[in-house]
């Protein structure tokens, strides 16, 4: 009651521009075959439209705050549902950045043509060494390779029975550490085009495996996020359904005096938006608290490995995304609930 008193007071503002225009139109004047009757200019209508948005937004927020415990519960449910996949994503991010520290120098093995002369190979080695994107180049001759293979594989006898050496000469390259994955693959392509080179092999299987695992984890996080978003939709949908039910009389009256569906929908959409937004912000808080708790131990652990690794948070963009997606899911949940339940309520 107090709330509505306040609202009515705010409308007691002194009459301004629109007054005379509205007064100039008596009851039955602008009848055009019963078509739409515009009683106010578009500017007034726009203002009225904005005013209703404002009052809907304020009103639904006030209704929420009037039942703080219940609202907080809803916010918490939404926050947990949003924070779970976000936490998973943040963890994956951190693992990835940890991986990138070791990812810097994958080895590239160039298998050379077995008929290449020593001079041509030495020439190629020099040329490669002078490139910016290559750090070191080591040469392993076919004979060296055979010797290494014999001692390491224990299949020396089998090989010795062959009269020619089946192993090609190889060059082992280390690319510059700051090479991006795309640059690396371009480097591989350009190396493959060298006349002497038969084959290019990137020696970073474990890193690729890590990437695969991270990718899998990311997909898992997205699937989990989708599932939990569905949960949020249901939670908000149900909350909105109850809210619609409790305002049934009001909806009937609004429809009876000419309220459009959009008008009736508006406060409920704002309710959903507030739930989602609140949930998103709360999820941010939960996630930040979690990271804060973990950052100490992680830094200590990293320190003991002489690493300056530290936990990364969501960052500004990620946080914004979390909040916006919360708001979006809230709005969508409300929209679905309103679409389902508002049609049932008609004046009788």
């Amino acid at each position, binding site marked *: 009651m107090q709330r509505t008193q306040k609202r009515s007071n705010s409308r007691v503002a002194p*009459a301004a521009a629109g007054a005379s225009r509205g007064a100039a139109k008596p*009851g039955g004047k602008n009848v055009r075959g019963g078509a739409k009757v515009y009683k106010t200019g578009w500017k007034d209508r726009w*203002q009225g439209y904005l005013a209703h948005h404002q009052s809907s937004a304020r009103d639904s927020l006030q209704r929420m705050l009037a039942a703080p415990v219940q609202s907080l519960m809803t916010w918490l449910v939404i926050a947990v549902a949003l924070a779970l996949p976000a936490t998973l994503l943040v963890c994956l991010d951190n693992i990835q950045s940890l991986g990138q520290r070791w990812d810097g120098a994958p080895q590239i093995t160039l298998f050379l043509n077995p008929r290449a002369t020593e001079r041509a190979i030495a020439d190629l080695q020099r040329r490669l060494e002078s490139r910016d994107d290559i750090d070191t180049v080591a040469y392993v001759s076919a004979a060296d390779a055979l010797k290494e293979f014999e001692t390491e594989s224990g299949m020396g006898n089998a090989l010795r029975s062959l009269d020619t050496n089946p192993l090609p000469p190889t060059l082992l390259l280390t690319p510059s550490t700051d090479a991006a994955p795309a640059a690396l693959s371009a480097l591989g392509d350009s190396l493959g085009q060298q006349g002497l080179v038969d084959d290019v092999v990137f020696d970073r299987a474990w890193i690729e495996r890590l990437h695969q695992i991270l990718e899998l984890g990311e997909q898992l996080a997205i699937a989990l996020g989708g599932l939990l978003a569905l949960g949020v939709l249901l939670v908000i949908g149900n909350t909105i359904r109850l809210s619609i039910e409790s305002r049934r009389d009001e909806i009937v*009256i609004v429809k009876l005096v*000419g*309220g459009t569906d959009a008008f009736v929908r508006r406060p409920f959409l704002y309710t959903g938006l507030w739930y989602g937004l609140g949930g998103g912000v709360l999820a941010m808080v939960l996630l930040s608290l979690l990271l804060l708790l973990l950052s100490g131990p992680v830094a200590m652990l990293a320190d003991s490995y002489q690493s300056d690794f530290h936990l990364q948070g969501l960052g500004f963009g990620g946080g914004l995304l979390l909040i916006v997606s919360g708001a979006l899911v809230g709005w969508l949940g409300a929209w679905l609930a309103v679409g389902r339940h508002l049609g049932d309520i008609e004046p009788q």
Partner: protein
Amino acid sequence: MIRFDQVSKRYPGGHEALSRLSFEIDRAEMVFLTGHSGAGKSTLLKLIMLMERPSQGQVFVNNQNLNRLTSRQIPQLRRQVGVVFQNHQLLFDRSVYDNVALPLVIEGYNPAEAGRRVRAALDKVGLLSKEKQNPIVLSGGEQQRVGIARAVVNKPKLLLADEPTGNLDPALSAEIMSLFQQFNDVGVTVMVASHDLALIRRMNKRVLGLANGELAHDGVLQHAANAETV
């Protein structure tokens, strides 16, 4: 202003509330709708508001064929029609002012203009001093007048009332009727469904008498003899 053309209304249960009803009401006319309980008075008013659709026939409001209106166009129709109910349909979670302002908020009036009109409507029904109160603390007659203020606040050309004096004592009923009369005097078409034959007779207006969904009487009620047929 209102034209019914061979209108029938059959409810889902199979009961025919109105059968082949035809009549016409001119602009700025004041008409009473009467008949026994279940005669179809409320049904007739609901057809005008598109709260129900006719099973057969056509209803015209303001030369507009209501059969042609889609559900998206219903709000536009309802904004042209003011309605008053016996159970006044006020919202008790807001002030008298906000109840009356509702149609203007819906139409997107700017607050200053809306304020001016709400005050004018409340002044008209004599409740300007109660604008900040909650309608729940008002008497039955006052609540009914709030409902009337809300019905006329956006200056509709057509005013419908379904048993607006049903719960009121004779003095209050007469007061409400004279309010309707005043709106009619300034050109509003008024249609009032009522049981109160004594009051209707005193108003000396055209009366549509319904019996079992059919038009049994159309004209001014003057003599007690006429009343018998209604």
